[in-house]
């Protein structure tokens, strides 16, 4: 039933200080109302519990957008239309501008505010995944002053937020560090406008030579609060987006979310679509064509070298001299796929001794120096590949060192694993599992790991 306006009070303080003073008022709280696109809907349904409301729609202090050198501060009272029209937001934070365009129709975008979207705290809030993906911080203000909190922890549960009863969100701050990232936002709903989302995704990544350097994936409507896909991000980081990585990421994403059955969709549908959206994002990353030409040029330079020089240079990708000699003999190679294809063919014909030579060019996992000779480039790549593992604490480093010793006692050679993106815990688990292998199948496993390392390195080499 519709509410009776006689039962409600509404005041309109003329500035932020007066509004904050009202919020410290004894007695019943003054509920802030900005564009009314949520509260007035509750009011229409007779479901608005607050009886004292305070309009903050006209407060100029809340509607400024300031662009500083390192961040943009978006006043919480900025409307979705303000966001869509702002140059810096459109250019550097396109996922936020795009999400603003998802909100209702134009009339709703002219009234609804980003601060309102945050405090309304619906799991389906359109702008929220992008704020999470961009690593937003919020400036909260009360008569006591301001405090700055990370957005990550602002939502503490379904419709629960970390905002004191005397506080307002003054501004949303986004770091200006995503230039050059591929950014991808997608809403899945029954229709584009005026539909609450079944799932919304905001994902961005920095890809360097096909390798994912940094990736942030956030989703709405799949958990009580907007969430990051931490596990999926970890799988992708430091890796090349080959089919197996994409498939693993999709599977992980679908299992990482915590969707529910509700009026708009089912949990099963949501989990499946999350996987699909992640694939769509990764396909877009893979399609980034920009660097192709540079790689072909790098290859043309190598094609023109003397046989000895060509062999010496490519040895950084794999320490087997037989392999390097065969690679140099296959020149000229036209492009990256020809290069990787040639390597795979040569690998198929390598003897065990060649593989053992290749293994010796790697340092032990958790160490820096290889047993055999390794180029500077090879050592630098090893350090990169093992960077996730190197972040481990002393205890797991010790466990890894002990595992390495056991492996070498058992198989008489260094333990080889494609370490890129893997933590020391994961590597340790793999090591322990492989200790159960017999000699022959363990050599095959090590060769496969070496082949994966070589693929990564060949691609990095073209991009060096």
């Amino acid at each position, binding site marked *: 039933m519709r509410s009776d*306006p006689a039962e409600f009070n509404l*005041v*309109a303080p003329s500035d932020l200080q007066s509004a904050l003073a009202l919020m410290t008022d004894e007695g019943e709280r003054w509920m802030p109302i900005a564009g009314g696109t949520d509260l007035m809907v509750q009011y229409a349904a007779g479901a608005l519990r607050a009886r004292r409301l305070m309009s903050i*729609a006209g407060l100029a202090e809340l509607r400024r957008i300031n662009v500083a050198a390192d961040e943009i501060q978006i006043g919480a009272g900025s409307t979705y239309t303000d966001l869509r029209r702002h140059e810096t937001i459109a250019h550097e934070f396109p996922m936020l501008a795009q999400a603003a365009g998802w909100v209702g129709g134009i*009339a709703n975008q002219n*009234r609804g505010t980003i601060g309102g979207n945050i405090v309304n705290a619906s799991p389906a809030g359109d702008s929220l995944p992008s704020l999470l993906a961009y690593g937003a911080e919020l400036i909260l203000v009360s008569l006591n002053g301001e405090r700055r909190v990370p957005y990550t922890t602002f939502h503490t549960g379904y419709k629960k937020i970390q905002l004191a009863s005397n506080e307002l969100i003054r501004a949303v701050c986004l770091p200006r560090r995503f230039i050059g990232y591929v950014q991808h936002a997608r809403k899945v709903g029954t229709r584009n406008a005026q539909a609450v989302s079944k799932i919304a995704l905001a994902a961005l990544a920095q890809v360097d030579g096909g390798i994912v350097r940094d990736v942030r994936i956030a989703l709405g409507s799949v958990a009580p609060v907007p969430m990051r896909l931490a596990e999926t991000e970890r799988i992708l980081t430091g890796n090349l987006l080959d089919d197996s990585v994409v498939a693993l990421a999709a599977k992980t994403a679908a299992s990482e979310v915590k969707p529910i059955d509700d009026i708009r969709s089912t949990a099963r549908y949501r989990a499946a679509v999350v996987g699909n959206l992640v694939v769509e994002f990764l396909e877009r990353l893979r399609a980034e064509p920009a660097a192709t030409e540079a790689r072909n040029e790098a290859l043309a330079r190598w094609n023109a070298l003397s046989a000895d020089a060509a062999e010496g240079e490519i040895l950084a990708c794999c320490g087997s001299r037989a392999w390097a000699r065969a690679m140099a003999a296959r020149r000229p190679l036209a492009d990256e796929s020809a290069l990787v294809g040639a390597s795979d063919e040569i690998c198929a014909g390598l003897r065990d001794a060649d593989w053992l030579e290749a293994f010796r060019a790697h340092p032990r996992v958790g160490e820096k120096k290889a047993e055999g000779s390794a180029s500077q480039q090879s050592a630098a790549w090893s350090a990169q590949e093992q960077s996730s593992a190197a972040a481990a604490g002393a205890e797991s480093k010790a466990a890894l060192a002990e595992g390495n010793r056991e492996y070498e006692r058992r198989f008489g050679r260094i333990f080889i694993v494609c370490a890129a993106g893997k933590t020391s815990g994961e590597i340790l688990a793999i090591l322990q599992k492989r200790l159960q292998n017999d000699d022959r199948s363990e050599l095959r496993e090590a060769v496969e790991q070496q082949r994966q390392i070589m693929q990564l390195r060949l691609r990095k080499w073209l991009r060096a």
Partner: protein
Amino acid sequence: MTKRGAAKRDISLTVNGEVKTVSAYPMERLLDVLREQLGLTGTKEGCGEGECGACSVFMDGALVDSCLVPVLQAQGSSVVTIEGLAADARARAVQDAFLEYGGAQCGICTPGMILAAVHLLNAKSAPTMDDIREGLAGNLCRCTGYVQILEAVAAAAAKRGAAR
């Protein structure tokens, strides 16, 4: 019984170019004030929750749903309703196109549709069909199936382009 609400108060706003002062509860909807106190019944109520756009008006130039605006928030602003656009050449062109293309049937959505179309054309003189779809996405029609409405807006835009 404790008095929790507010008394009526005088609220002034400009409506279709004229300053009006109404006596209203601050949480009364702008929609109701326009229709019931000012007699401007061209603004319709459809859903009453910001989904259908039948109650669209311009507030300080921006398209808004008047069912979601507490009248106190309109204090001091300039509101334009469909009646206020009667003499506007752009609105007339849209209205003519709606007639020509069969963009109006029962008429409940039509004022809001025309306001949304004019709002779009004010911002974009040569909109694409996607622009038109987006500009009118907040307005629901239960009769036409939308195609005639979209065609009408496209025709009005083209006519204006040709007239230049």
